[in-house]
C-alpha cells in the first residue's frame, strides 16, 4: 500500500492524490466507496474542500481529525444527509452523489449519526421496525428485530418504552442496533462511543468487530483514536476540511501524532482516558465518560 501524505495545506497536492488513488484502487481491488474531490458547505459556511479517499471492500477505515475538521460532514455526505456541492461519491462503481438519503440507505449504506440519533417519539421496537420494514420488507423485518433484541438484551427489556426516555448510553445502543439489525455493505458510524461508560465502549467495539467479521466494510469516526486505529486497516486524517494524510494505519501514525498530540496512541498503552483528560482538569474523575 502506498501512503499519500499531502500535508496540512493540501490545496495543490490534490491532483497527486487523485493520481495515486487510481493506482491504489487497482492494487487493492475494487473500492466499495470512493469520494472524489468532494466539497460541502452549510449555507455560507464551507466544511469540506476537495476531500478524496476510498474505502476498499471489506476494510475498516478510520476517519480522524480534531473538532471541526469535517469528519461528521464526510459521514453525512456519504449517507446523503448533506449533498456535495462539487465532486462525486461512488458506491461500488455507481455514482450516488445526487441520490436522496433513503435511496442510499436502500443501496446498503447504514449511517449511525452522532449525538442523539434515535427517534424520541417512537418506541424502541418502532425505531427498529421502521428501518427493518423499509429496508427488508414487512415479512423479513421480524427476523431482523429478533436479531437486534438478541444482540442487545437491554433493549429487549425496554422494547415498548419511548426511545426518548432511554438513558444516553441506551440510546447509542439503540442507534447501533438500528444499523446492525439490517445487514449493510458499508457501515458509517459517527462518534458512537461518545459519552459511554468504558465497559459499554468495549461492548460497542466488540459489536463493530463482529460486523467487520461478517463482511461489512466500515467507515468509523471515533474519539478513541487509539482504539479505532487498533482495529482499522486504513486511516484518513482530516484537517480543516482537507485530507492531510491517507494510508495504512502504520503510515498515518506519525501524522496523527503530529496533528493530534493529545489523541495520538501511546505505543502499547491501552488507557485512553488518561490521554484524553486535559491537564487543566486534574480533578476529573478517572473513567468519566464525557471527559472530552
Amino acid at each position: 500500500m502506498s501512503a499519500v501524505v499531502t500535508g496540512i495545506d493540501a490545496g495543490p497536492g490534490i491532483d497527486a492524490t487523485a493520481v495515486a488513488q487510481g493506482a491504489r484502487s487497482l492494487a487493492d481491488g475494487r473500492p466499495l466507496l470512493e469520494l472524489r474531490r468532494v466539497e460541502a458547505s452549510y449555507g455560507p459556511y464551507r466544511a469540506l474542500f476537495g476531500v478524496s479517499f476510498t474505502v476498499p471492500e471489506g476494510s475498516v477505515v478510520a476517519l480522524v481529525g480534531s473538532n471541526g475538521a469535517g469528519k461528521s460532514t464526510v459521514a453525512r455526505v456519504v449517507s446523503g444527509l448533506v449533498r456535495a456541492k462539487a465532486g462525486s461519491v461512488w458506491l461500488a462503481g455507481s455514482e450516488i452523489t445526487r441520490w436522496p438519503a433513503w435511496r442510499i440507505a436502500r443501496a446498503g449504506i447504514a449511517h449511525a449519526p452522532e449525538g442523539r440519533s434515535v427517534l424520541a417519539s417512537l418506541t424502541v421496537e418502532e425505531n427498529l421496525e421502521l428501518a427493518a420494514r423499509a429496508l427488508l420488507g414487512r415479512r423479513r423485518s421480524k427476523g431482523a428485530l429478533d436479531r437486534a433484541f438478541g444482540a442487545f438484551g437491554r433493549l429487549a427489556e425496554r422494547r415498548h418504552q419511548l426511545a426518548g426516555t432511554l438513558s444516553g448510553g441506551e440510546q447509542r445502543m439503540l442507534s447501533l442496533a438500528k444499523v446492525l439489525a439490517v445487514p449493510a455493505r458499508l457501515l458509517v458510524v459517527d462518534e458512537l462511543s461518545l459519552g459511554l461508560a468504558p465497559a459499554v465502549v468495549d461492548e460497542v467495539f466488540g459489536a463493530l468487530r463482529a460486523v467487520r467479521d461478517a463482511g461489512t466494510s466500515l467507515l468509523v469516526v471515533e474519539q478513541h483514536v487509539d482504539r479505532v486505529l487498533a482495529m482499522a486497516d486504513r486511516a484518513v486524517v482530516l484537517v480543516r476540511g482537507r485530507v492531510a494524510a491517507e494510508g495504512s494505519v502504520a503510515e498515518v501514525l506519525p501524522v496523527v501524532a503530529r496533528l493530534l498530540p493529545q489523541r495520538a496512541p501511546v505505543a502499547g498503552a491501552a488507557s485512553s482516558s488518561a490521554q484524553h483528560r486535559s491537564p487543566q482538569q486534574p480533578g476529573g474523575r478517572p473513567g468519566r465518560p464525557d471527559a472530552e
Partner: protein
Amino acid sequence: MALFLSFLLPGIPYGCAYALMGAGLVLTYRASGVFNLAFGAQAYVSAIIFSIAVHDAWPAWAAFVVAVLVASPAIGLAMERLLFRYTRTAGPLVKLVPALGLLIAIPSVTQMIIGTSTRLPSSLVLQTWKIYFRLGSTPVSGGELSTTVITVVVVGLFALVLRSSGLGLRMRAVVESPRMAELSGVRADRTSATAWVLSSLFAGLAGVLLAPLFATVSAPNFTALLVAAIAAAAIGGFESLPLVLAGAIGLGIAQQLLAGYLPSGTILSSGLRPAFPFVVLAIALVARRTLRQPAARDPLASCDPPALAFRAPARMTQVAVGSRAFSVLVAGMLVATTVVLVPGSWEFVFTLGTVLSIVFLSITLLTGMGGQISLGQAAFAGAGAFTAGQLAMHAVPVLAAVLLGGLLAAALGAVVALPALRLGGIAVGLLTLSFALLATNVLFLYPWSGNGATGLTVPRPQVGTVSFAGNGAFFWLVLAFLVLLAGAVKLVQGGTIGRELAALRGSERGSAAIGIDMRRLRVVAFTLSAAIAGIGGALYASLQQSISVNDFNYQFSLVYVVVVAAVGVYSVAGALEAGVLYAVLMQLTSTLSSRFSSLLALVFALAALTYVRHPEGVVAYGKAWVLDRAEQLTRHLQRAEPTYAGPSGAATGQRHGHLRPHLRPHLHGGDRR
C-alpha cells in the same frame, strides 16, 4: 326520550363532518407538524365544485370524483409540495402563517373564478332532508343516515390501513426527523405527500357531506366547521383517531342538545351553540398533556445551514442616515398630504391606517418580539372599543374612555394569558382563537357590552374647548397616540423586557434556565399587547362613531396576523407600514366589482405564503434588499475616490465594511425557524 332523540339525531351528521376534518387535521399534524387551517377552505372548494357540477346536470358520482377525489387532494398535494415540505423543521409561527394565508386566499380565488352568486348545496347519496325511516317515533333523515355510514366506514378503513401498512409509523418518524427517517430507508417526501393527499380527501368529503346542512354554500360556514374540527382533534390530543371520532360526534350531539334545551331566544342559546366548540377546545387544550409537551427536536437539525439572523439594523453610517431620512420624508409626506392636500375620503383612509397601525403594534409586541401566536387580537380591540362606547354613553369623557378601554382590554389579556401559561406554540394561538370566537358569539352580544349587531355609538373626543370632531383634528389625535405607543413599544423592545421576550422567542427552556420567569413574562406580554389593541380598538370606535360586533369579528384576528406577518412582524416600522398599506389597499379595492372584493385579503394572503422563505416579511425583506444595494453602491463609490478619508467614512469601513452580510451581528436574537 323521544324529544331527546329528536335533538340528538340531527347532531350526528355535524359530528361526522367534524370527525372527518378532525381526522384530516390530526393526519397532517402528525405527518408534517402543520396545523392546516386551510382545511376549511378545501372543504368549501369541494362543496362548491360538487354543487356546481350537480346543477350543471352531471351525474352525482362524476361530480363526487371531481370534487372530492381530484380537486381537494390536488390542492393538498400542491400545498405540501410548494409550501409545507419546506417548513418541516421550522417553528410554529412559520407553519401557521402560510396555512392562515391559504385559509383566506383559497375562498378569495374561488370567488373570483366563479363569481359571488349564491350556490345551493346538493345532496350526495340520499336526499338530505327526506325521512327514510323512524327510530321509535323519531324520524331519521337521509343526511343523518348517509353521513354516519360514510364517515364510520371511511375513518374505520383508514385507521386499518394506517396500522397495517406501517404508514402511521412512517408518518410519526417523518414528522420528528425527516432525515432520521430517510436514514432508515423511508421516503420522507412521499410519506408526507401521502398524508396530505389523504387528509385533503377527508376535508373534501366533509365539505360535500356537510354542505346540504346549510342553506347556501359559503366560505364562513366552513370556517365554523373547521373550528369544531379543531376542537375534536384537540379532544383526541392531536393523536388518537378513535378519540377524535368519538369527540367529534359527541360535540355535534352536544351542540344540538344545547340548542334544544337551552331557553330559546336568549343570547346563551343562540350564541353558545356556535361558541360551544371553542369552550371545548379551550378546555381540551389546557387539560390534555400531549398538547403541552413541545415536539421532539430533530436530532439531525444541524444538517441544515444555520438559520440566518434577521437582518441587523447595523448599516454603514451613510446608508443608515440616508434610510432614516427617507423614512422621515415618506412619513412626513403622508402626514402632510393627509392634513393639507387630500379631500374627505382619503383623509379618513389615512386616519384609519393610523388606527390600524396601533392595533398591529400589539401583534408586533406579542408575536414579533415574544414569539407568542395570538389569533384573538380583534377581540381585545373589540373589548377596548365597547368599553369606551359604554363609558362614553355614561358621560365619561371620550379620551378617558379610550384609555379605560385599553385598561379593560389589558385585564382581559392577563386573564387569557393565565390558561396559556402552560401551553406553547400553536396551542396558544388556538386558545386565543377560542377566546375570539367566544367574544364574537357570546360576550359582545349583550346590551351591556357590544349590544350585538345593533352596536354602540361612540362620539369623537372633546378636551376642554378643543374638539376632535373633524376628521383633520381627529387625525392629529390618533397620530399622537401612534407616536406615543410606537415609542413605548420601541422602549420595551430595547429594555429588559424586550431582551427577555427575545429570549422567550428563541427558546423557552433556555430562557427559563438563565432565570427568566416565563409565566410572569407571558402575562406581561399579553397584558401590554391587549392594552395596545384595546386602545387601538377604542380609537377605531371613535373614528367610525358607530360600531358593532361585526367590526371585531374573529376573522379579523386571523387577517390581522396574516397582514402583519406578511409585511414584517419583527419591527415597529412593520406595524406602521402594514396599517397604512392595509387601509390604502382597502380603499383602492373597495371600488372594484363585488367579484373582486376579496382581492385585498388575497394580496396579503399571497404575501403570507412567502413567509416560509422570508419570515422577516415581504416589505422588510424588500427594504433590506434595497439597503444592501445602497451599501454596495456606497462602497463602490468610496473605492472610486480613494482620497476620501473622512472620519465617518473610515469608521464605517472599520466597523461594517469588511463584514459579509451573513456575518453581521444580529441585535435581536436568533429565532428557531
